[in-house]
């Protein structure tokens, strides 16, 4: 039976790329997947898997989600029922307890920690470009087919701080350890743009589609 994968539309950035990446990853694996972009709480309740992209500031994205009546509640409800969830970039950041960009804003609290401005020395911000992933091979389904040292595309100035080691799947190095992927139960997220990370990103999106947490 075809699975329904919802990409949540809350007026944030480039949703089309995430949807196309998921569709291509599905085709490659011969999966029957219907990817749809939606802001409708009822449609979200019928989704088998949920992807939350996000670009821009934490506070704006959190506000964007809340501005659509019933959307956030439907998302929380469906995820609590066990639907696999993938947050991308700010979508991943929203999984934290709170964000500190433009004031303190609560997140979903699905993983421990807060989204704080990255501490850098001489490095430039945003952290923009391709950086290496570091992780324990075999530690999570989403990492299947990847090797430590594979590159992913990052664009961000804020990152997860104070996370639980067992919720951090992968890190990268930019003036020290930066959280690159998190997971807790049926909820996972990538700080980098999986939908813009060529083969590495498509592999992760494909893994998400067959992930049974």
């Amino acid at each position, binding site marked *: 039976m075809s699975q329904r994968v919802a990409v949540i539309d809350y007026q944030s950035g*480039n949703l*089309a790329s995430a949807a*196309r*990446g998921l569709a291509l990853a599905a085709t490659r694996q011969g999966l029957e997947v219907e990817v749809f972009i939606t802001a409708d709480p009822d449609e979200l309740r019928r989704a088998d898997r949920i992807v939350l992209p996000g670009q821009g500031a934490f506070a704006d994205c959190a506000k964007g989600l809340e501005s659509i009546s019933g959307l956030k509640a439907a998302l929380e409800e469906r995820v609590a029922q066990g639907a696999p969830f993938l947050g991308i970039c700010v979508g991943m950041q929203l999984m934290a307890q709170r964000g500190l960009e433009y004031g303190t804003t609560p997140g979903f609290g699905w993983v421990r920690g807060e989204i704080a401005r990255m501490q850098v020395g001489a490095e430039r911000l*945003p952290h923009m470009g391709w950086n290496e992933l570091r992780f324990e091979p075999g530690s999570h389904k989403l990492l299947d087919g990847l090797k430590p040292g594979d590159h992913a595309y990052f664009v961000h100035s804020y990152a997860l701080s104070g996370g639980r080691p067992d919720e951090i799947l992968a890190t990268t190095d930019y003036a020290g350890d930066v959280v690159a992927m998190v997971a807790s139960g049926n909820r996972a997220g990538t700080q980098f743009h999986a939908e813009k990370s060529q083969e590495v990103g498509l592999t992760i999106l494909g893994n998400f589609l067959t992930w049974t947490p």
Partner: protein
Amino acid sequence: MLKLRVIPCLDVKDGRVVKGVNFVSLRDAGDPVEQAALYDKAGADELTFLDITASSDNRDTILDVVHRTAEKVFLPLTVGGGIRQVADMRRLLLAGADKCSVNSAAISRPELINEAAEKFGSQCVVVAIDARQSAPGKWEVYSHGGRKATGIDVLDWARQMQARGAGEILLTSMDRDGTGKGFDQELLKAVCGAVRLPVVASGGVGELRHFVEGAQAGATGLLAASVFHFGQFTVAQVKEALGAAGLPVRLPRAI
């Protein structure tokens, strides 16, 4: 470690590539989508489309190009040229662009950068600066494709754009553009020292060592058009040269 970005730039006019690689393998060398897919396979780290469509009637042709490219290429895509307002940026982002590069419109109305950064986030907002040397150690901002002097100092302008929310500076030396003499390293060093943002160097590359010099001057992105289009260098050769100089590059992924 964060890698340097090698960024081929395609000039697009009325939806067609103006200068492009003329490979026999291409069905249609004028199709920006085919060119983009080629650079994607060749290991480019990002792609930039510069829309040089003159007539406003044909402005929307770039949207179709972006849309079709984003369907095929899972690589960050920047689009510049002809962006006047936030609504133009929104259309490009919805079509599949990841970043919008603004030049003249920011000069006529600098608040555009604040509005864009607030609406889409700084990571989407690239400010393109066309610079020409006016005195030793001084550069002036030019607008309208480098045709109009503005009287604005490049370093002041870069700082102002950073303060207004730009996420990246695309810096083109008008003195070097098209000369093949290499990036203007003095200019690059000055701008990289003036802002904390990533700076993409553009204009003047003619030899492989020029890419190395651009990175050594502080640029984290290296953009070039002609040397790639006319097949002078491949992206792989550029990365090899950077790597040989001890600079960090992303090499093709071994499967």
